C-alpha cells in the first residue's frame, strides 16, 4: 500500500459490560455460599432455575445463533438421564461420574440424529427432531432393566454416598440428603457458568462470527469460505453434550425416572422455548431474564393448573409477533446496554481523524 495505515485496535468490551462483570462475580460468590445461607427448599428452587437456564441457553444457541429450530432437545435430556441411571444401577458407577458419561453418550447419539434430521429443512427439521425423540423414548420404554414404561428409582445409597457428600457431611455437619442437594446445586451452578462461558467464548471467537454470518445469509457466507454445514453440526453436537449432562444432573436430584417424564416435550422443550422467546432469542442475556420471569410466573399461577400454560402460550405468541427480540431485546434496544457484548468495534487509524475518503479520495 502506498501509505502505512496507522494500526487499528479492535475492542469488544463496553462500559456496561465491565461494570456487569464485577456484579456477576459478586453474584457468583453469593450463589456458591447459598447452601449455607438459605433453606433447602430455596436451594431446590435455585437448582430448578439453573438447570432450566442451561437448557434454555443451549436451545437458544441452536435456534438463535445456528438457525436450527429443534422441537426434540428432550431426546438428550432423557437419554442423558437414562444413561446416568444405567451407569449407576447396572454398573454401580458414582452418579457424578455417570453425569459426565451421559454427556459423552449424548454426543454419540447426536451423530446419527444429525445425519437424519439435517436432511430436513426448517419446519420439517423441527418435527424430524421430535420424531427422533419419540423413537428413543419408545425404545427406552422397552428396556425392562430400567423399569420399562413405568420407570424406576435410584438406589438410596447411590446418592447418599456420592462423591463429596461424605466430606461435606464431616466438614459442614450437613445431613446426607441436605449435602446431596447442596452438591447437585453446586454442580448445576458450575454447569451454568461453564455453559455461558462456552457460548460467550464461542461468540467472541472466529467460529462464532462465522455462525452469525451463516445465520444472516447462508449463501453469502459460503461465498466467503464459511462451511455452514460443518458449523451447524459442531453446534448441534456441543448442545447435545451439555443438554445430556443437564438431563443427567436433573435426574440425579429427582432420583426417580420414567420415559414419559424424561422425554416430556412440555417440560424440556415447550417451557425452554418460552423462556428463550419471552426473554429474548439470539442473546445470552435473554434466557437469563426469561428463566427468572418463567419462575415467577410459575409460582404466581401454579395453582391455576392448565391456565398457566395457556397464559404462557399466549404470552409467547404475543411476544413473537410484537417484540421478536423479546423483553431483553426491548430493553437493550432502548438503553444500548449489553452484558455480553460481541460486536467487534474498530477504533484508531483514520477513524479517529474522521476525515472523509481513503488515501486516494
Amino acid at each position, binding site marked *: 500500500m502506498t501509505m502505512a495505515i496507522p494500526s487499528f485496535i479492535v475492542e469488544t468490551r463496553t462500559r456496561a459490560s465491565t461494570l456487569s462483570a464485577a456484579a456477576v462475580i459478586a453474584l457468583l460468590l453469593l450463589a456458591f455460599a447459598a447452601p449455607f445461607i438459605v433453606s433447602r427448599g430455596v436451594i431446590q428452587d435455585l437448582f430448578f432455575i439453573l438447570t432450566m437456564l442451561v437448557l434454555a441457553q443451549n436451545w437458544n444457541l441452536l435456534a438463535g445463533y445456528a438457525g436450527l429450530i429443534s422441537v426434540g432437545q428432550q431426546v438428550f435430556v432423557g437419554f442423558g438421564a437414562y444413561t446416568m441411571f444405567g451407569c449407576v444401577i447396572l454398573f454401580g458407577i458414582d452418579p457424578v461420574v455417570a453425569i459426565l458419561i451421559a454427556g459423552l453418550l449424548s454426543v454419540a447419539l447426536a451423530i446419527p440424529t444429525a445425519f437424519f434430521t439435517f436432511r430436513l429443512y426448517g419446519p*420439517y427439521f423441527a*418435527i424430524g427432531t421430535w*420424531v427422533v425423540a419419540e*423413537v428413543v423414548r*419408545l425404545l427406552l420404554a422397552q428396556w425392562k432393566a430400567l423399569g420399562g414404561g413405568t420407570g424406576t428409582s435410584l438406589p438410596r445409597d447411590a446418592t447418599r454416598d456420592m462423591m463429596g457428600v461424605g466430606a461435606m457431611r464431616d466438614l459442614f455437619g450437613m445431613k446426607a440428603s441436605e449435602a446431596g442437594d447442596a452438591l447437585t446445586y453446586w454442580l448445576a451452578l458450575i454447569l451454568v457458568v461453564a455453559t455461558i462461558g462456552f457460548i460467550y467464548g464461542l461468540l467472541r471467537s472466529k467460529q462464532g462470527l462465522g455462525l452469525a454470518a451463516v445465520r444472516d445469509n447462508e449463501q453469502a457466507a459460503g461465498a466467503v469460505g464459511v462451511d455452514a454445514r460443518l458449523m451447524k453440526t459442531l453446534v448441534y453436537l456441543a448442545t447435545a453434550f451439555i443438554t445430556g449432562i443437564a438431563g443427567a444432573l436433573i435426574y440425579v436430584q429427582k432420583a426417580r425416572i420414567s420415559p414419559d417424564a424424561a422425554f416430556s416435550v412440555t417440560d424440556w422443550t415447550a417451557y425452554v422455548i418460552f423462556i428463550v422467546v419471552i426473554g429474548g432469542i439470539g442473546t445470552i442475556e435473554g434466557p437469563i431474564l426469561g428463566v427468572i420471569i418463567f419462575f415467577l410466573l410459575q409460582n404466581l399461577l401454579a395453582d391455576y393448573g*392448565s391456565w398457566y400454560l395457556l397464559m404462557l402460550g*399466549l404470552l409467547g405468541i404475543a411476544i413473537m409477533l410484537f417484540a421478536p427480540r423479546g423483553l431483553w431485546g426491548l430493553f437493550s434496544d432502548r438503553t444500548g446496554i449489553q452484558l455480553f457484548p460481541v460486536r467487534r468495534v474498530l477504533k484508531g487509524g483514520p477513524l479517529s481523524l474522521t476525515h472523509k475518503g481513503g488515501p486516494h479520495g
Partner: protein
Amino acid sequence: MNWLDTILQGVLLGGLYALFAAGLSLVFGIMRLVNLAHGDLIVLAAFLILVLVTTLGLDPFVAAVIAMPLMFAIGWGLQYFLLNRTLGKDILPPLLVTFGLSIVIQNGLLEGFSADSRRVFAGSLESASVNLGPATAGIMPLMTFFSAVAVIVCLNQLIYRTSVGRAFRATSDDPVTAGLMGIRPHRIFALATGLAMVVVTIAALYLGTRANFDPTSGPSRLIYAFEAVIIGGLGSLWGTLAGGIILGVAQTVGAAINPEWQILAGHLAFLAVLLFKPRGLFPRAVD
C-alpha cells in the same frame, strides 16, 4: 398372524393418516408454512363434533357437516389475523407462534373438557363390517379410506381445474407477480388454511369415532401427518396418500409382532424412507 388382514387394516389406517396429512400438505405447498398446531386443530374439531353430537343429539356425520363451516371460519381467521403476520424470510416466527398456538389449544381444551379421553359414538356403524373373502374390513375404516381418496380427488380437481386453484399455484410460485394479476395473497393464504380446516374436520370425524382422544392427543397426530407427507414426498397429494398407507401398514405390522411396537414401527419406517429417499417416494412426480 393373518398377513393379508394386517396389511388391509394398515392400508385402511393409512386413509386416516392421509386425511391428517392432506391439510398440512396443501398449506405447505402454497405458503411453505408448517402449522405445529395442526394436530391440535384436529382434536379441536373432534371436540366440536363431540359437543354437537352430545348437546344436539345429532348423528356424527351430520355434526361433522355442521362443524365444517365453523372450522373453515376458525382456519380463515387464524391465518388472516395471526399467521399471515408471521410469513416472511425468517422461519422462526411461524414455528414459534404455531407452537404457542398448540399449547394454547391443548390447555384451552383441558380447561373446557378436562383430561379424560372421549369418543364419538357412531352407533351400529362402529361394529359393522363387511366380509372381503380372506379378510374382514370394518365399515368405518373403509369409509375413512374412501373419504381420504375422495378428499384428494376433490382437492386435486380444485387445484388443477378451477381458477381459485390457479390462484393457489400462482401465489405459491411468486406472490408479487400474483398481485399484478389481481390476486390478494393474504386472502389466498386464509382461504387455503380454511380449506385445510375442512379436511381436518373430516379427519376429526373418523378420529373421534374410531379411537379415544383427549386434549393432549394432538401432537402425535401432527407427527403421523408429518411422516405421511415426508414419506409421500412434498407437494403431491397422491404421494401423501401413499405415505399414509406405508405408515399405516408399518404400524399394523409392528403391532402384529408386538402390540407395544405399533407407533415405534411407524417411526422406523419413516426414518428408513428418509435414509434412502430424502425427498420422499413421490416428490411432486405423481400429481
